[in-house]
């Protein structure tokens, strides 16, 4: 029996945003799910469905308006911004659609960034960052600036940065959104390899079913509600039908 707590546990999470013109808008409604260690979950939904808000809450970048969120058994719902920063640094590795590398820092510096905030010694940082660059096949590019790399290479640097802190969870937000299909597939295969070979938990946000198929489990969000949560279905029609049902 697995004694480890779930990596992610959301209980009746709601998110309400105040609107600039007055009033408020609820974008998530009673979201409840758990993600266990070693899982590869795709959170899918159309634009405006609330999947990014859900990712922000899971990534400790935002907090739920109501409900509770436990990350690896820790309730982070009421944490301060600095406590959340520590949680992000120790538990989560982010991979963004637009890479979000620091343009004026070389590749090695970019990969070392989370380690610097963790307080590792410069030698340990360099050693760990080089290991990660080797893992993503960029060991010969450590002195390059991000602007000197292709999109696929940039995303591999971002993955190396996400992995450098040895996180419990990789959160990938539309990781292939800025890449062509060949490079996109390469990155997705790499995620699958990381999950399969190293047992790293991956949550991937996407609006494309083809990409979601790389995961083992799919959580489909529509209008702020979970309309599907289970193994990735064979085709998208199931999801579309559920969305239609929900719209009624």
């Amino acid at each position, binding site marked *: 029996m697995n004694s480890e707590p779930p990596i992610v546990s959301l209980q009746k999470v709601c998110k309400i945003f105040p609107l600039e013109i007055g009033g408020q808008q609820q974008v998530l409604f009673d979201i409840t799910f758990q993600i266990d260690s070693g899982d590869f979950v795709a959170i899918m939904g159309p634009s405006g469905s609330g999947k990014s808000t859900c990712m*922000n809450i899971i990534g400790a970048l935002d907090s739920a308006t109501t409900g509770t969120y436990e990350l690896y058994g820790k309730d982070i719902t009421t944490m301060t911004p600095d406590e959340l*920063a520590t949680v*992000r640094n120790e538990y989560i590795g982010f991979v963004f659609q637009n890479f*979000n590398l620091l343009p004026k820092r070389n590749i090695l510096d970019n990969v070392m*960034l*989370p380690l*610097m*905030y963790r*307080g590792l010694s410069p030698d340990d940082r360099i050693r760990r960052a080089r290991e990660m660059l080797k893992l993503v096949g960029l060991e010969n590019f450590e002195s390059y600036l991000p602007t000197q790399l292709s999109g696929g290479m940039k995303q591999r640097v971002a993955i190396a940065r996400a992995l450098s*802190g040895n996180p419990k969870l990789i959160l990938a937000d539309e990781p292939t959104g800025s890449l062509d299909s060949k490079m996109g597939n390469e990155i997705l295969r790499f995620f699958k390899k990381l999950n399969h070979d190293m047992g790293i938990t991956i949550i991937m946000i996407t609006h494309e079913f083809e990409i979601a198929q790389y995961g083992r489990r799919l959580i489909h969000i529509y209008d702020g509600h979970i309309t599907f949560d289970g193994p990735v279905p064979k085709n998208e029609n199931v999801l579309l039908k559920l969305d239609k049902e929900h719209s009624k």
Partner: protein
Amino acid sequence: MTVSDIIKESWLSISGNKLRSFLTVLGIIIGVMAVVIMVAVGETVQQSITDQFSALGTNTIVIRAGAARRGGIRSGNRNTLTITDAEQIRRLPDVMSITPAQSGSAQVIYGNKNWATMMLGTYPDYTTIQDIEVENGTFFDMTAVKNASTYAVLGPDTARELGLPENPVGEIIRIQNMPFVVIGVMKARGDSSFGSQDDMIIIPITTLKKRLQGSPFPDSVTMIALKIYQDADNAVVTDQISALLRQRHRLKDGDEDDFQITDMKQIMETMDTVTGYLKLLLIAIAAVSLLVGSIGIMNMMLVSVVERTREIGVRKAVGAKERVIIIQFLSESVLISFIGSMFGLLLGVGLSQGVGRFILHYNVPFSAWPVLLSVSVAIVVGLSSGVMPAIKAAKLNPIDSLRYE
């Protein structure tokens, strides 16, 4: 995050935009340089005045004949002082040396050379009071004063203008057509704000009064100068002299003094205060440019926060705490300010010392406090101009920052 990390991160951020950073640093360089130069100018003026007063001696008191002002009209030329007054003042316990003195213009002839200069009749104590050294020969003594001897001690410029030989002792010069024996030449002292001290002739007071001026009041003089002991209190001695002279001159209560007492220590203190304010004024003017420079840093940092919004978002996403972001931005502004201050200090000291020594030929005093000032400016300006942008950066929402285009 270690201190070296902070410095490295700050340096990389600053050097990432070289021109803008250079222009911002330039503002601080100009500001600090202006302050350092103004401090040097102020201290030079203060030092110069202090030196001149010190040459006269702070324990020197000068009494001039005549009231300071009567009915709105100055009447300082009346010879209300006497040699006897000086002798009476000498009896005061704190008086170290004293001389009555009277000046006048003199037409001096040596051979075929003719020179117009200032002539001063004194006692031998004048050398002690004015710290005069005789380079060639000697100064006259009290016997010469008693005998109204026709001895003359010349300033070095006077001796040169008259074309006297290198050792002029024993040479005869004519003052107002009366022959005088040159018994000594004073050591050069240079110009002061009180006029040249090197172009003058000093003769016994009695010789001046009786022989040259043929005064009907040979006892009267225009000035008495005295030196008091170092541990004596100038104010106490001044009061004693005032009381003594009022008594001797039979002045009633309510009558104005018919003499003016000038205490060099008091004047020097007043001048010191005045030059102190002058220095402050100069620094205040220069500080304005420093203020403008610090606003430049703040402006640059605010722009930098906007430009680096996404970077801040990334840093926060990977674990940077608010205080780390604050430290990073503060250290950038402090580093800019520090670099500017150090260059400003070097340029300021270099220019003030260089211009002072090589162009004005004046020894500009070098004090440590511009260094302290520069370091303080680097910290204070850097922190004060960086704190607002740093807090702004730290408070950015990571989600909005990551989405920022």
